């Protein structure tokens, strides 16, 4: 009997990338593959992105960037990392020609110290209101000046930020702040070629957010922002289908071999449905390694396969429905799935 499986439709992923690339052109597209490619499987997804002609990959951390290089992601594809811890081994990362998203002087100095042969590729980050990473407006000139002074070791490739997507108005303010930070850097002598601000929603919706490069995660996997916006309304296709076998059947209930230990939220009880043979059933309990659905008098058989969520083309629930019903976003549901769930890739 097969266990729970996440089937990843790489051709849908490539179609999403192609549509998004067309929409954001002439800006370039970075495929964001952090968190094991949003739970879809790092290497197959990254390879599909490269095969589709994507020239930028965003990994979040250095370790994942190194993993991509070790597994043959070529050097002409830029690999962007930006969650930099206090004790990073920058030497290896520079050797692997990773790009760094730098927010502080101490990160910059550590990178410069490690950059003994050749120049490390750096993108300076300005905080435009999200208040996570990024230099404050006060610290910004110092960070720019220092990176220019270190030009024998630091190649200043880009300037970037990340925005809150709180409202159009708030995003407009962030875009204005970004433009000012770029202007300040240029006055200080910087000539950057890659300016980037937008993730999925802004890149899709606003031409003025795209600059030279957009960083796309969610939309490439066909994960829409919710609140009534479906993937198909954006002409995007869901990439993951999650299935689990029926492992027990009794008195109007069917038990599936997947549970909260596999990453299904226990809050799925009474909120979401699964589909078996085209019919939908309510989840009535979630345990460590199993989940029970109320099948009434439907003729469910042991060994049937239940679809928890999928593309929706066979009337099964979609990730978007799950997210809306669970009061969260699709990203949380897919990244929470256990790495022990088998990923099956369709080319």
């Amino acid at each position, binding site marked *: 009997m097969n266990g729970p499986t996440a089937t990843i439709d790489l051709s849908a992923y490539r179609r999403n990338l192609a549509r998004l690339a067309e929409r954001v052109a002439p800006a370039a597209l970075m495929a964001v593959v952090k968190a094991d490619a949003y739970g879809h499987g790092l290497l197959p997804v990254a390879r599909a992105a490269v095969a589709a002609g994507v020239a930028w990959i965003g990994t979040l951390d250095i370790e994942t960037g190194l993993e991509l290089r070790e597994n043959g992601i070529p050097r002409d594809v830029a690999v962007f990392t930006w969650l930099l811890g206090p004790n990073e081994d920058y030497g290896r990362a520079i050797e692997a020609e990773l790009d760094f998203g730098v927010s502080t002087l101490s990160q910059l100095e550590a990178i410069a110290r490690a950059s003994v042969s050749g120049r490390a590729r750096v993108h300076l980050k300005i905080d435009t209101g999200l208040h996570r990473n990024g230099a404050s407006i006060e610290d910004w000139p110092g960070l720019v000046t220092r990176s220019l002074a270190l030009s024998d070791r630091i190649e200043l490739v880009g300037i970037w930020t990340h925005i809150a997507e709180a409202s159009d108005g708030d995003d407009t303010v962030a875009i204005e702040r970004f433009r000012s930070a770029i202007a300040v850097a240029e006055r200080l002598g910087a000539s950057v070629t890659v300016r980037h601000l937008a993730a999925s929603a802004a890149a899709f919706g606003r031409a003025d957010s795209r600059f030279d490069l957009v960083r796309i995660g969610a939309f490439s996997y066909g994960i829409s922002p919710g609140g009534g916006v479906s993937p198909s309304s954006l002409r995007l296709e869901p990439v993951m289908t999650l299935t689990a076998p029926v492992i027990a059947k009794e008195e109007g209930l069917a038990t599936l071999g997947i549970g909260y230990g*596999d990453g299904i939220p*226990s809050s799925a009880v009474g909120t979401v449905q699964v589909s078996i043979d085209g019919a939908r059933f309510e989840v009535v309990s979630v345990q460590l390694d199993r989940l029970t659905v109320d099948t009434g008098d439907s003729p469910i058989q042991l060994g049937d396969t239940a679809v928890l969520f999928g593309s929706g083309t066979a009337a099964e629930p979609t990730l978007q429905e799950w997210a809306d019903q669970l009061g969260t976003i699709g*990203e*949380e549901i897919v990244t929470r799935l256990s*790495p022990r769930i088998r990923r099956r890739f369709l080319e």
Partner: protein
Amino acid sequence: MTILPVSRIHSASIDLLAIRDNAAVLVRRAGSRIVVADVRADAYGHGLTAVIGAAVDGGACAPDIDSAASLGPDAKFVSAGSALYGLLPDLELKPAMRVSALVVGTKTIDAGESVSYGYTWTAISRTNLALVGIGYADGLDRIASNRGSLRLRGALRRIVGRVAMNALVLDLGQDSALIGDEAVVFGDPSTGEPAVWDWASSLGRPSAEIVSVFGSHLPRVYR
């Protein structure tokens, strides 16, 4: 067993002696019945092989059908799950998993400035923030946004703004923190750290779910 690179920003550290000692307590309490370790879901996210070793050291049985059957039809079994991992507030049991992450950024913001996606939290006065490298992709539920707290520098600090995929922000008020400081989601309550059952109940989830999900995503370190 994993030795983590020094660069590790977040981890689930697993106390195997706690699992061994918890097993011994459960064996004693079980009297003549045989205690079988419940190691489903990769030992509730604690790591199958390591947990079996520790539980057997404490006198529990591995959940091996053949050997269980060889104990004879009269043997009475009792399965040890939550108790084995110390997920219950029981003074004789010790929680085996500790989840923590490092401060990767610090910042001071003014009254009226907001934090994280959707700007769901706005400072009412000038305040210090710490950015911590753990998020919902690591198992820290997004519903902890503006609700949960982590222990940092000796006090509980509230999560402000939305928990993101790989990071969250803590409000420190007038206190400050340094990059590299450790923030604890839960650990050993006997040392003042938050307990997993308090974290779980604040989110309305079973403790077993919390540890299984963190354990399957975070790098594990064994103590």
